[in-house]
């Protein structure tokens, strides 16, 4: 098996991200969250040469903000638990009552879960090749996919731009002392953001994204029926989701199937021979053995996760109320989750000086 490849397939990364996110979303078990966090950090560092970000400083700062908000909100609004730290007057609305260590611990675990999800999302977003994903989607969904990719890339790109602007201003002797000093940082960031938006829009336009599926001058007999079909499908999917949430399983599944079918029909590829512009393809997607291994591991982890959730949901749960007690450990589940470390094995190499590997 060749070790150290240029990149993994985007489909494998998506499966890996889903498998990593599901255990964190299901429960608040600190050991499970801690394990996933360690794995994601390792994978992120191993693939650092492909994660094009302006360092991890902004991510850590964002994590600290999430941590602060989560802990403060939980401590001030949940007045339960056996480890009382302090007491606020009961007359204070919402925040009045006992402040407990139980609430603080739960806030910390929740913040850790949020940060882990954020790390999984940004890591996967940086490692995905969005063009590959476009090709997997129905062509009618191309505008949505483009909008999604631009949105996804917004935060890291803005953070990188802000870092560059700050460094440039520091070289000119600028120091932030008061609120007014932030203006020389914000204005170039705003102008740069607009410029980047225009450049992105021009690049997309030049590549034919957003173009009408029907060549101009031709009648569009199916546009209203297409819109109606999509509307009915989305309403059916929404109604089905609601029915499933309130426990009307049979009606919910029926509506979901109907909505899914209608959506598939509405978004089905156009007839052969139609003069719809074809996007240019410069390379074919290659499914390698490493992609297969990572995907199989992710699917296996998902299977074990759902299986353990049905058999032994306590492995995902941590409830510090009303008594703060240590959680149990579901060792088989944790061993299965360790398979998510596999992408780190296939990370691209860098030379000893840290110079980026193959591009």
């Amino acid at each position, binding site marked *: 098996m*060749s070790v150290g490849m240029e990149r993994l397939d985007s489909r494998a990364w998506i499966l890996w991200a889903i498998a990593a996110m599901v255990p964190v979303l299901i429960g608040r078990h600190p050991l499970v969250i801690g394990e996933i966090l360690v794995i994601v950090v390792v994978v992120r560092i191993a693939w650092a040469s492909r994660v094009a970000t302006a360092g991890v400083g902004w991510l850590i700062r964002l994590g600290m903000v999430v941590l602060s908000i989560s802990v403060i909100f939980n401590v001030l609004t949940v007045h339960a*638990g056996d480890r009382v730290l302090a007491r606020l007057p009961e007359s204070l609305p*919402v925040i009045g009552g006992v402040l407990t260590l139980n609430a603080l611990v739960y806030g910390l675990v929740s913040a850790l879960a949020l940060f882990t999800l954020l790390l999984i999302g940004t890591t996967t977003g940086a490692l995905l090749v969005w063009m590959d994903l476009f090709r997997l989607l129905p062509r009618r969904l191309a505008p949505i996919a483009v909008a999604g990719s631009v949105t996804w890339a917004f935060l890291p790109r803005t953070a990188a731009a802000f870092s560059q602007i700050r460094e440039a201003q520091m070289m000119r002797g600028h120091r932030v002392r008061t609120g007014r000093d932030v203006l020389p940082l914000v204005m170039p960031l705003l102008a740069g953001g607009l410029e980047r938006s225009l450049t992105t829009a021009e690049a997309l336009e030049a590549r034919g994204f957003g173009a009408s599926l029907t060549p101009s001058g031709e009648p569009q007999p199916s546009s209203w029926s297409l819109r109606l079909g999509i509307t009915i499908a989305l309403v059916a999917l929404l109604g089905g989701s609601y029915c499933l949430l309130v426990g009307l399983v049979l009606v919910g599944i029926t509506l979901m199937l109907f909505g899914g079918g209608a959506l598939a029909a509405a978004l089905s590829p156009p007839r052969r021979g139609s003069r719809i512009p074809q996007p240019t393809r410069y390379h074919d997607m290659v499914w390698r053995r490493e992609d297969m291994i990572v995907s199989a591991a992710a699917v296996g982890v998902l299977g074990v996760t759902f299986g353990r959730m049905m058999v032994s949901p306590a492995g995902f749960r941590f409830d510090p109320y009303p008594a703060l007690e240590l959680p149990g450990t579901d060792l088989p589940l944790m061993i299965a989750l360790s398979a998510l470390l596999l992408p780190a094995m296939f990370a691209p*190499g*860098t030379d000893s000086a840290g110079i980026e*590997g193959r591009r």
Partner: protein
Amino acid sequence: MLAAVLGQGATAQTPEATDHINVAGLMIDYGDGRVSYALVAFTEESLSGVELLRRSGLPIVTVPFGGLGEGVCSIDAVGCDPGACRRRLCQSADRESPFWQYLRQAEGGSWSPAVLGASHADVDDGDVDAWSWSGTPPDLPPMSVTSMRDLLGVQPGWASGGAGLPDPVTMTQGEPPGGNSDQRSWRDLAPGMALIAGIGMAGWVMIRRTRHRSPAGGR
């Protein structure tokens, strides 16, 4: 579900105290074969349902719902965490999944859910309230303060006999299936923590190998 959303919490009680000591009863059905009974003495004219529950001394977890008051998440460790409680008062997508139902007793001993919530309910002298961890209408026996006093072995003059307000009297009948859960220690967490440390070490080795690997992929 609305029955478990309580009103103004402790502020619903009448503030002025009286010399007379009142007594109210509480019956808690955990849905696992256990039932707790409690007799609570108070000097106010009336209490809110959640205040009566709080004064019973049983460990409870509640979350505030603004103007609607508090929602009861768990009683004596039976229930759900505040996150699930905030979302749907412990209920899942299954409409018959359990939550803490607050019930009041009508004339004749029949129980019915208190639709305005326990905080809007005025518990007076001689009333008996019930809480049931169930997703369906519970089947509870009629209960009066007198019969509860007999059940708990409390003398009729118990509330007014002492100098101050007497402590609540509680009793739990029945055993949960599987018995009591044993306390966990740090030693139980050791395998999981060792596994995380092992993953960290393995990751460190992988990263080092990546760093030393030539860009061409060889070694």
